[in-house]
C-alpha cells in the first residue's frame, strides 16, 4: 500500500490514479507527474539529484516545492499529463516529454557544474589555506626553529667539548708539573746525599802525613871522653848524615804534598762533577717538562681544531639543510603563486583565494555561456573539465 495520495501501487510500481497518466518510455511504466509527491523510482540519476538537492536546495526548488513556475519536474509532469489526456492544442505528448527530459538534463548539468565549482572552490580554498600556511611558515621563519634548536645543541655540545678539552689540558699540565716536582725532588735528594757524603768524607789521606828525618844516633861521646878521645869527627859525620836524612825527608814531604794536592784536586773535581751532574739533571728534566708541556699544548690545539672542524661541519650541515628546506618552500610557494615577502597572498588559510562572490560570478558566466551554446576550456570562467559533454 502506498503512503502517498492519489497513487496506487501495482506490481511494485507506483502510478497515478485516475487522471494524468503518462507513459515513461525510459522506465516502461505509467506515472503521474502533475502532483508528484512520491519518490522517483530509484536509480543512479535520481540518487544523484537527491544528493544535490540536499546540498544545494536553492538550485532545485522543484524538489521541495511544487508551486514554483520553474519547477522542471512540474513541467515534465504537465507535459506528460497533456500527452496522457490527449489534449488537442500545442505540442504532442512525445514532444513535451522530450522537452521535459531536456529540461531535466539541463538542470542536472547545471547542478553538476555547480558541484564542480563548489569542489573547485573547496580545492582552491584548501590550496589557499595550504599556501597561506606555507607562506606564514616561510616568512615567519618557523621552519628554521628545528634548525635553530640543532645549532643551539651543537653550540652547547661544542662548549661542553671545549671545556672538556681544556680541563684535560689543565690536568695534563698539573700532572706534568707534579711529575716534574717529584722527579726533581728525587734527583735532588740523590745529589744532596752525594754532596753530603763528599763533604763528610774528604778524600785526602796525605793531609796528616809529616816526613821526619829520624833521630840521630849517639856519637859515643861519653865512651870516647873516658879515653880522652874527642868526638868531633863523629859528630861531624852524624850531622852530615842527619842533613842527608833531612833532605830525604823533605823530598818525601814534597811527594806527600803532591799526592795530597792531587787528592784535593780529585775531591774538588768530584764535587764539581756532582754539581755538573745535578745541573745536567735539572736541565734535562726541565727540557723534558717543556717537551711534555709542548706536547700537551699541541694536543690541546689539535683537539680544539678537530672540535672546531666538527662543529663547523655540523653547522654547515644544519645550515645546508635549512637552506635546502627554505629553497624547497620558496619554490613551492612560488609555484603555488604565493609571495615570499609575506602578506600579499593568503592569510594563513583562513580565507580562500577565490572569494565566494567570484564563484558566483563564474557560475553565472558558465550558465550564460551555456545558454549561448558556447564551450570554453579552463576552469576560470569556462566549463569545468568533465562537464563539456553536458554542454548544449
Amino acid at each position, binding site marked *: 500500500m502506498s503512503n502517498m495520495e492519489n497513487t496506487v501501487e501495482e506490481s511494485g510500481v507506483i502510478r497515478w490514479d485516475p487522471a494524468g497518466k503518462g507513459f515513461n518510455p525510459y522506465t516502461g511504466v505509467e506515472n503521474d507527474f502533475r502532483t508528484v509527491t512520491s519518490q522517483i523510482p530509484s536509480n543512479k540519476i535520481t540518487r544523484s539529484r537527491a544528493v544535490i538537492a540536499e546540498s544545494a536546495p536553492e538550485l532545485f526548488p522543484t524538489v521541495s516545492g511544487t508551486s514554483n513556475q520553474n519547477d522542471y519536474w512540474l513541467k515534465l509532469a504537465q507535459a506528460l499529463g497533456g500527452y496522457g489526456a490527449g489534449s488537442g492544442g500545442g505540442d504532442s505528448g512525445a514532444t513535451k516529454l522530450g522537452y521535459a527530459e531536456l529540461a531535466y538534463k539541463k538542470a542536472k548539468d547545471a547542478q553538476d557544474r555547480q558541484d564542480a565549482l563548489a569542489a573547485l572552490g573547496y580545492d582552491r580554498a584548501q590550496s589557499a589555506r595550504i599556501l597561506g600556511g606555507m607562506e606564514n611558515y616561510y616568512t615567519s621563519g618557523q621552519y628554521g626553529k628545528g634548525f635553530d634548536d640543532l645549532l643551539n645543541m651543537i653550540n652547547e655540545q661544542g662548549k661542553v667539548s671545549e671545556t672538556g678539552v681544556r680541563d684535560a689540558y689543565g690536568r695534563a699540565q698539573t*700532572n*706534568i708539573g707534579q*711529575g*716534574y716536582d*717529584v*722527579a*726533581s725532588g*728525587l*734527583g735532588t*735528594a*740523590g*745529589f744532596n*746525599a*752525594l754532596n753530603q*757524603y*763528599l763533604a763528610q*768524607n774528604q*778524600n*785526602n*789521606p*796525605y793531609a796528616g*802525613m809529616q816526613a*821526619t*828525618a*829520624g*833521630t*840521630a*844516633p849517639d*856519637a*859515643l861521646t861519653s865512651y*870516647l871522653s873516658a*879515653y*880522652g*878521645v*874527642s*868526638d868531633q*869527627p*863523629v859528630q861531624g*859525620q*852524624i850531622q852530615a*848524615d*842527619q842533613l842527608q*836524612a833531612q833532605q*830525604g825527608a823533605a823530598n818525601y814531604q814534597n811527594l*806527600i804534598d803532591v*799526592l795530597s794536592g792531587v*787528592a784535593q784536586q*780529585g*775531591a774538588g773535581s768530584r764535587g764539581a*762533577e*756532582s754539581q755538573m*751532574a*745535578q745541573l745536567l*739533571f735539572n736541565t*734535562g*728534566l726541565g727540557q*723534558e*717538562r717543556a717537551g*711534555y708541556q709542548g706536547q*700537551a699544548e699541541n694536543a690541546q690545539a689539535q683537539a680544539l681544531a678537530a672540535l672546531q672542524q666538527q662543529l663547523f661541519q655540523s653547522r654547515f650541515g644544519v645550515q645546508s639543510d635549512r637552506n635546502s628546506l627554505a629553497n624547497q618552500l620558496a619554490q613551492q610557494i612560488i609555484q603555488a603563486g604565493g609571495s615570499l615577502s609575506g602578506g600579499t597572498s593568503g592569510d594563513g588559510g583562513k580565507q580562500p583565494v577565490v572569494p565566494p562572490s567570484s564563484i558566483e560570478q563564474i557560475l553565472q558566466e558558465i550558465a550564460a555561456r551555456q545558454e549561448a551554446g558556447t564551450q570554453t576550456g579552463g576552469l576560470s570562467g569556462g566549463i569545468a573539465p568533465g562537464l563539456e559533454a553536458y554542454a548544449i
Partner: protein
Amino acid sequence: MAYNPADYEARRRGYTQQYGATGAMNAYANFLARQRGTRGRQDMLRQYDEAQPKVVAGYSRRGLVGPNVKSGIFSRGLQTLAKQRARNLQDYDQGQLEEQRMYDLGEAQRLEAFKNQLADMESEKAQTIANAARQLYANRMGMI
C-alpha cells in the same frame, strides 16, 4: 736503569771489607817489619857494645893505650869505631824509616783508592737516582 739501594750497600760492604782486610794484613806485616827492625838494631848495638872493649884491648896489647899512654892511633881508631857505629845505626834507622814511609804512603794511597771507590759509587748512585727519576717522569708522562 733501575735504582736498587741494596746493590750499592752490598758494594759498599764489599769495598769496606776488602779495604779492612787488606789494611789489617798490611798493618800486621808492618808490625812484623818494625819488630824485625827493632831486633836488628838491638843486635847491632849489642855487637858494637861487645866490640868496643875488644878494640880497646887490642890497642892496649900493642901498648898504644894504657895508663899515661894515649896514642894518636888509638884515638883515631876509637873515633873510627864511633863513626862506623853512628853510620851503621843511622843507615839502619833510615832504612827502617823509609820502610815505614813506604808503608804509610801505601796505606794512604790505599785509603785514597778506597774512598774513591766509595765516592765513585756514591756518584753512580746519585746518577742512577737521577736517571730513575727521569724514567719515572717519562713513565708518568707516558700514561697521560
